[in-house]
């Protein structure tokens, strides 16, 4: 098992009511596996929200395997400018 730190922003933060959470996962889990967990926890509140994954502050593919103590963020549509 491994632990990753999930950072929550904007709609994700709003849906989960948390800015950060620690999640335990099986070794070999992918970002997409964690996203499924997060969407379940959000109880439908993220159903209409497209999310991109960042690991350790870089956008990555959903297939990327997570490693212990990775910092993961599911990025809802951004609004800078």
């Amino acid at each position: 098992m491994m632990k990753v730190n999930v950072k929550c922003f904007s709609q994700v933060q709003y849906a989960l009511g948390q800015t950060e959470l620690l999640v335990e996962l099986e070794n070999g889990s992918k970002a997409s596996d964690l996203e499924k967990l997060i969407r379940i926890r959000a109880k439908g509140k993220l159903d209409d929200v497209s999310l991109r994954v960042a690991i350790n502050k870089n956008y990555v593919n959903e297939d990327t395997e997570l490693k212990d103590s990775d910092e993961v963020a599911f990025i809802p549509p951004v609004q800078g400018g």
Partner: protein
Amino acid sequence: MIKVEIIRDPVKLFTINDDRKEDGAELVFNGRVRNMERGKEIIALEYEQYEGMAELELKEIAQRTCKKFPIKDLFCRHRIGIINVGEISLHVVIWSKHRREGLEAMNWFISELKKHVPIWKWAIMIDNTRVPSECKH
């Protein structure tokens, strides 16, 4: 040269002077907070960033802009936190030999920024409630 900053204080404009001898076009863009959000009056926007990643992304987009277009210099300041109506949230200066590539680079840089930089907005309404912004630009 590329300069990229994410700041919390009111934006100070980059100094511009007559020292550049090879760039015929100097383009400055200031994005300001408008008083309306989805048809309702607001008093401010609150910008939230993914600390660290936002600046990294911004820098990378600036670098890509300088590769895609024939420009060497792009300066950018993005303010976060609470920004009152009328104030600057985004300040960009691009220098180029001719205006056309400067305008194109400015447009491209800002579109990419709006697609990728992990920054989000909350609208602060006149009754002081704070609601997620849904500005689609």
